[in-house]
């Protein structure tokens, strides 16, 4: 019988995984097994900081008239830019809104599709993405089987899969369950689902709660959209949108905030800043790690 690979050996059941997130949240040094992994070097390397001008755009909230509601997400398939591509704030109904744009000169759609599958398979793969704030990741056994099913195209592998990530979006370490879905289920107009409008997509809905969950902790929903299109100057343009306080109900966005309630500024700004930092890092190291490990999932 063949030895079990690391990618399978790390599987925990739900109880064990939940218990493991507290020590993981402290971001301990790599253990001996992790240190031997062929991509461990990325954990300790220096990486570029975001452009200060970019960070500055995430400092203060923007006017709500510049934002799109989740029901308007197909505007992202229009040529050109929307009224705001970088910024955060609140919709009039109290939901949190985040827009971010990154340009990656050396990233391709194939790299994006590979990454969003590859990184799910063990904690270290998630930690190297953004070591200061990424603590770990877990899949359910059924999701792991789908992720490792080579009969499914990489671009579709995450559809229906939930990533259980532990990360800090500047409001403390949280366990976030991110359920990825197809662009059709997300609500995109599939008649325009082609270049130059779009190259690839990763998105779904999430529920976040503090790792140090108390009896009265809030479990907060959000919709997450990462959509990519060719950049005229070469490479790929990545546009992120978050709608915090929304969930999907029967395939449609639904606001879950009670009347008069607003998602806290700190939560929206914190996620916006986190997004800028983690994807600055990502754009820098994805071409390099893809060159070493791309095209395969086991390492």
């Amino acid at each position, binding site marked *: 019988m063949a030895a079990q690979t690391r990618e399978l050996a790390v599987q925990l*059941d*739900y*109880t*064990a995984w939940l218990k493991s997130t507290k020590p993981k949240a402290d971001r301990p040094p790599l253990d001996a097994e992790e240190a031997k992994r062929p991509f461990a070097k990325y954990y300790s390397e220096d990486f570029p900081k975001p452009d200060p001008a970019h960070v500055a755009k995430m400092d203060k909230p923007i006017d709500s008239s510049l934002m799109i*509601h989740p*029901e308007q997400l197909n505007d992202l398939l229009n040529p050109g830019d929307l009224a705001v591509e970088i910024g955060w704030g*609140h919709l*009039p*109904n*109290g*939901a949190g809104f985040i827009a971010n744009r990154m340009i990656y000169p050396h990233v391709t759609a194939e790299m994006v599709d590979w990454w969003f599958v590859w990184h799910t398979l063990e904690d270290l793969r998630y930690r190297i993405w953004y070591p200061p704030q990424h603590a770990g990741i877990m899949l*359910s*056994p*059924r*999701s792991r089987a789908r992720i490792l099913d080579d009969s499914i195209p990489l671009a579709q592998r995450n559809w229906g899969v*939930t990533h*259980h990530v532990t990360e800090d979006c500047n409001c403390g370490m949280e366990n976030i369950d991110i*359920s990825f879905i197809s662009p059709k289920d997300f609500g995109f107009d599939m008649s325009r689902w082609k270049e130059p409008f779009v190259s690839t997509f990763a998105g779904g809905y999430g*529920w976040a*709660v503090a790792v140090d969950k108390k*009896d*009265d*902790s*809030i*479990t*907060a*929903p959000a919709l997450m959209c990462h959509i990519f299109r060719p950049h005229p100057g070469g490479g790929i343009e990545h546009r992120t949108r978050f709608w915090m306080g929304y*969930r*999907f*109900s*029967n*395939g*449609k*966005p*639904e*606001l*879950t*905030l*009670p*009347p*008069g*309630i*607003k*998602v*806290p*500024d*700190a*939560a929206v700004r914190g996620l916006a800043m986190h997004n800028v930092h983690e994807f600055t890092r990502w754009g820098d190291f994805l071409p390099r790690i893809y060159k070493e490990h791309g095209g395969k999932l086991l390492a």
Partner: protein
Amino acid sequence: MPSIQWIITIHCTNAVPWRYSQGDPSRTRGGDMPIKLMAASRRRPGLTRAEYQRYIEHYHGSIARNERLKIDRYVQNHVIDGAFGTLADETHKLVADRDAVVELSFPTFRDMIETLEPAVPSAASQDGKFFADERTNVIVMAEEEEVPVPTPLTGFNPGLGIIKGVGSLKVLHYIMRDDSVFREDYYDHFRDAHAKALAASPYAREQLRRCVMNKRCRLNDNDAAARKHFKMVDPPVYDMIVTHWYDTIEQAGAFRQYIEALQAQQPAFADWSRSFYLYTREVPIIRDTPKP
């Protein structure tokens, strides 16, 4: 019903982070899938089951009809019989007593909030203490997923009224997820196990008229204030309640055949000792005539 105060308190008392500031309460478009509040309760001390059921149908139900607000549908399921745990258990591991399960359906979550948290407290929100032992309530906010059945009711069936595809015996099956199973896998495991159990249960396969998975919504995670309000101490959490309909109580044996097959399925996905099922009679309180 065990009252709606719980939602009120969720957002008034508990949701401190969301209370950061006031936003525009304008509504946004929601989904078409109804969201349901399912509350299983037992009678307060001193009441008989008949007194309790009479009270909730004729008094509490009338209050709800008078204060309908955005309730889309409201049915009470009056318990006839039921079983808690398994034959292998030496003693019960949970409250082994339920007298009714009420279901309140709303078009959207926002509609639910606006109904259950009116500007002026509703009479319904104050009424629960008169009939229910509120601290033992089991409250689940759920969304439906229809499970196709091999022999749905297609023709005339006397006594079942204007609603197609249901029967007069409604079984509510509270299935507690095994702690070790991820929630997303739990639903998949149930679908597989249900199909296998039906295949192994010819009587149930023939008699089951309709089956609906009521899956717990994550919004339910934010119910601490409700639990505090009702002095509920670690109430059991059910990630799913499956509803089965049969033509009459005469077919209760079909469910019995099915559940024994279901519990035997592998992989294990449920804590059967903390699961239970109720044979009930459905009492519509608010259910509009379907539009042609």
